[in-house]
């Protein structure tokens, strides 16, 4: 088989490994899917209201929640990579004649699949809550932007996991993800926030994706700043920059002999 053939074969073996983990931990998978649904319901019916939002709040909330879920995917990626690195099984992978970078490909495919399923579930629940997005090509483009954002978070997560190394440090990142996630326009309009905070929020990559998705789904995005008006550019630009930065870093760090 050619070199490319082995890359494909090894990637498939590593992806199968992750799928086998799901098959053995169905409860964990379901909990992972239910958690964002719970958040969506809490903000939709309990806390919600969305300061400064024009139009139905659910139209504003669902895209925000989807983008936030993609951002939170970073935690799952980090946790999985750190656990692998600490278990010694990666040492076996690296001492074998396989294409060693395919360990990361397996992780990537599995996490993207899980996030795609998560998107479908959340969109379904949003629909049940009365949310009606615009259809057609715009709908698919929005899903594409969300997955692109998740893809960026994937490589940030893999890199951070290898830098952090230990599960204790992952916990610290898991806590930090919350303020970073909420420092966005996922739930509220930046104009309703103090000026300096609103500016930070608008430049958050999560906000760019959420705003661009809202526009594609025909919800009033609000905001007249440069960042808000060029959300589409930023929603593509931010992930491309993050992937361009973190993918080579992560692959390099993984491939490099330790020490």
């Amino acid at each position: 088989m050619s070199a490319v053939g082995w890359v494909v074969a090894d990637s498939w073996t590593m992806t199968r490994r992750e799928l086998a983990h799901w098959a053995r931990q169905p409860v964990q998978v379901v909990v992972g899917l239910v958690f964002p649904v719970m958040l969506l319901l809490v903000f939709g019916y309990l806390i919600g209201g969305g300061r400064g939002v024009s139009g139905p709040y659910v139209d504003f909330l669902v895209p925000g929640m989807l983008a936030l879920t993609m951002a939170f995917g970073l935690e799952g990626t980090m946790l999985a990579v750190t656990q692998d690195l600490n278990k010694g099984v990666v040492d076996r992978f690296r001492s074998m004649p396989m294409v060693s970078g395919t360990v990361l490909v397996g992780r990537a495919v599995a996490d993207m699949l899980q996030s795609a399923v998560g998107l479908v579930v959340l969109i379904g629940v949003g629909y049940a809550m009365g949310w009606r997005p615009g259809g057609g090509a715009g709908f698919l483009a929005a899903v594409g932007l969300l997955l692109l954002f998740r893809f960026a978070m994937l490589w940030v997560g893999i890199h951070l996991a290898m830098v952090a190394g230990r599960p204790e440090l992952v916990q610290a990142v898991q806590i930090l993800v919350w303020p970073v996630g909420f420092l966005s326009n996922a739930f509220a309009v930046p104009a309703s926030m103090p000026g300096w905070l609103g500016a930070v929020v608008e430049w958050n990559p999560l906000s760019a994706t959420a705003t661009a998705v809202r526009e594609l789904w025909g919800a009033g995005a609000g905001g007249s700043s440069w960042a808000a008006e060029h959300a589409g550019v930023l929603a593509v630009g931010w992930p491309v920059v993050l992937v361009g930065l973190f993918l080579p870093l992560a692959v390099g760090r993984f491939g490099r002999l330790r020490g």
Partner: protein
Amino acid sequence: MPDADVNGNSILVEDVGKRYGAKRVLDGLDLAVRRGTVHAVLGPNGAGKTTAVRIMTTLLRPDAGRVLVAGHDVQREAGEVRRRIGLLGQHAAVDEELGGRQNLEMFGRLHHLGARRAGERADELLARFGLADTGRKAVGKYSGGMRRRLDLAASLITDPEVLFLDEPTTGLDPRGRAEVWGAVRSLVGGGTTVLLTTQYLEEADQLADRISLIDGGRVAAEGTADGLKATVGSDRIEVVVRDPSQLADTVRVLGLPGVTVDRDRRLLSAPVTDRMGVLVDVVRELSAAGIEAEDIAVRRPTLDEVFLSLTEGGPVGDGESLAESDRGERGVAV
């Protein structure tokens, strides 16, 4: 076909150095392991054993020196080396969430055996290591010994020329240890070269053809277990008498040169050369003189004594296991 190796050595380590920051972990390490033998690298925690194995298995780059495994340079021909080695690391290097067969089949595919052959090989290895009836049970639920055996099976997927075992029984109970020892013994004779690191002296004694004692990142002594023991002194005969008042008579009756007496333990001890001859003489002379002995034994110096004498001041690091093993061997007399 095995590759051309260097003068019959499957592993050749020459003047290898490795440091982490200011700490020198390996400092001029030399090893030569002959094809088809079991070689133990024995040393306390922190002696550099694991670092050495990681370098030999292409996981870590040395700062200095040269390492050839199965005739290939670990730095320039890492791929060639990986095709020819198996590694059993300190931490179970299997996926604990999956079952035993799932693990072996996965590793087989990653060794590029192809899907069908990988499955067959998994079944062969499970049967060989007594794991055939584990079914779908996740490896995380295996006993320590079972997990180690699966780990060993995973290291043998392609019948490696050189097998590295990094502290294969650390953390196992005596039963698990016996299981792993049995598995390692069954490999030898098949022509596999085994490099084993351990902090248990007994393990090196039991399994290895040759032993390298390492301390401070370099080899402090090397030889067969018997050869190393001979370096610290000869065998001794030890007699424990029932009645301490008979100690003086015993010394006179036996007339052994260089005898020492420990009154508290009612023990008399003397160096000997002809182990069995002396034993027979002592038994006969004591019974002729009517002296009752509680214990008569010819004792060989333990590897602990070798180790302590060579590393001056005893084990570095926490040295706990050495102390443990020391206690364990005290009662063993030949």
